[in-house]
C-alpha cells in the first residue's frame, strides 16, 4: 500500500492573483505533475485542478466570465439576458463547460465538478496543498 503525504507549495505572491483573476501553475508533486488554477473572487481564493470534469480539458485556462441569466417580467415574458455580477464562472476552453468558482460545480448539473485543491494566503504569499 502506498501512502502519500500532503505537501504545501508556495505558488506566488498574493498580487499574482488579482480580483476576478487567476494564477495557473504546474507543480511537480512527487511522481506526477499537477496543474492548478488559483482564482480570486470577492477577495477570497479558490483553487482547482486544471482538468475539466467533462473530457479533461484545461478548465482553469479558459475565459473568466459572470454567469448569464435571463430576466423575466411580471407576466413571465423574457426581458433578455444579463450578466450576474454576483457570480464568477470559469469556462473550459475545450467545450465551454462552466463552473462557479466558489463551488467548482457546473451550474446546471452539480455532479460535474472540478477537483478542489486546498489554498491559503499568508503574509502576502499564496500556498496550495497537494
Amino acid at each position, binding site marked *: 500500500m502506498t501512502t502519500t503525504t500532503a505537501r504545501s507549495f508556495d505558488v506566488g505572491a498574493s498580487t499574482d492573483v488579482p480580483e476576478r483573476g487567476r494564477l*495557473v501553475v*504546474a507543480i*511537480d508533486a512527487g511522481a506526477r505533475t499537477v496543474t492548478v488554477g488559483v482564482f480570486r473572487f470577492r477577495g477570497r481564493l479558490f483553487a482547482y485542478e*486544471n482538468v475539466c470534469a467533462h*473530457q*479533461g480539458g484545461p478548465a482553469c485556462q479558459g*475565459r473568466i466570465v459572470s454567469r448569464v441569466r435571463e430576466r423575466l417580467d411580471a407576466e413571465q415574458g423574457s426581458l433578455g439576458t444579463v450578466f450576474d455580477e454576483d457570480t464568477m464562472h470559469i469556462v473550459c*476552453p*475545450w467545450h465551454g463547460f*462552466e463552473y462557479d468558482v466558489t463551488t467548482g460545480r457546473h451550474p446546471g448539473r452539480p455532479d460535474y465538478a472540478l477537483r478542489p485543491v486546498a489554498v491559503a494566503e499568508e503574509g502576502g504569499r499564496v500556498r496550495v496543498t497537494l
Partner: protein
Amino acid sequence: MSIDEGVRRLPTQEITTHTDSREILANAAADTERYGLDDYFIVDVDSHHVELDSWPEILQYLDNPVLRDTANQMMRNWPNAGRLALHNHSPGLTMQDVSGRIPHQAALAEETPGSEGGAHRDVTLVRRAMEAMSIDLQVVFPQPMLETGLHPQPQVATALLQAYNRWFTAEVLPREPRIKTMLGLPFEDPEACLATVEEFADHPGVIGFLVTSQRHAGVHRNAYMPLYRMLEERGLPIGFHAGPNQADSMTSTMNRFLSAHSMSFVTCNMTHMTNWVINGIPERFPGLKTIWIESGLAWVPFMMQRLDHEYFMRQSDAPLLTKPPSHYIREMYYTSQPMEWTDDALLESTLCAIDAQNSLMYSSDWPHWDFDVPGKIAAIPFLDDHAKRNILGETARKVFGL
C-alpha cells in the same frame, strides 16, 4: 519569499485563438498515458481545416474563366469579400464559439513558423492536432463548404466544389500521407458527381466521397443511381456529413444557436436516411458502404424504432425492403462525434442498438466547439478492449481499406 522549487507559472494563463494547438490539447496527453493510446491504431474519420484561409488560392482553381473573373472582382472590390467571394457562408455560424468561451472554434490563429501559409499552414495545424491526440490518420474536411448545398446558385456551388477538390488534392494531400479525405460531391448535378468520382477516385488519399447533408435533394432520385453504382463498384464509401441551418422551416423559429445546432445537425441526416432506407437503396446497392457523419448517435435508435413501427403497418410504402428498416440502419456506419454521453444507460443502449463495435468509427471533429478526444471512447466503461480498438481505428481500416 519566492515560489517553491518544482512550481512553474504556465506561460499561457488563458487560452485564446492565438494559443498553439498542441498547448490547447496538452491535456489529451494524459489520456494517451492513462489508456495506452499509443498502442492503438487511431483513425479520426471527421476533422476540419479552414478552407476560407486559403480561399483566394482555391478560387484560382475555378475552371470557368467568367466565374473566376467574378470571384477575382469580388475579392478586389468588396471590402469584406477577400475570403468569402462567391460563398454562401452563413453569418449565424459566428455564434459557434459561445461568445469567445471556446476560442479554437473561432480561429486557430497560432504562429506556424516556417510555414508558407495556405495549404502548408493547414497541414502544419493538422499535424499538431494529430500529434496532440495520438491520432495515426486523419480524415480532413472543409468547414463552410459544408453549406454549399444551400447555395442560391447551384451551378456556382458545383464550380466551387470542383475548384476546392482540385486544390485539396493538388496542394494538401501530397504534403502529408497521413491526411485522408472524402471529397464533396456536387450533388445538385448528378453528371458532375460522376465526373468527380472519375477524376479523383484514384488520387492518393481520397478514400471516399461525401454528400454535404444540408440540401433539399431527395437522395432516392433515379438520377443518383449511376453514382451509387459507380461508388459500389469501386468499393468507395459514401458519407453524409451533417451541417447547420438556422433558416429552414423549423429552425427559423429558434432564437438560440444551441437549439438550431441540436436540431439541424440531426434532422438533415434523418431526412436522408429515411429516403435512403425506405426507398431500398441498401437493397439496390448492397455493397455500397454508407457512413453517417457528425449527427451524434442518439438519433439512430429513434430512427430504428420509428421507421420499424411505421413499416410494419405500411409495408406497401416500402416494397423494396425485405427486412425491417432497423436492420439496414444497423448495417451502416456512423462516426462517433458528438457522442451524447449524458446518461450511461442510454449510451450503452444506443451503442448496443447500432452494433457499435462493428459500425462505429471514432471522429474528433477538431477544431470545432463540440469535438471529442480519443480518450472519450477509451473511457467508456461498458466496452471491452476489442470494441474500443474497432471504434478507434480498426473498423475504419476495414471500411476504407487503410
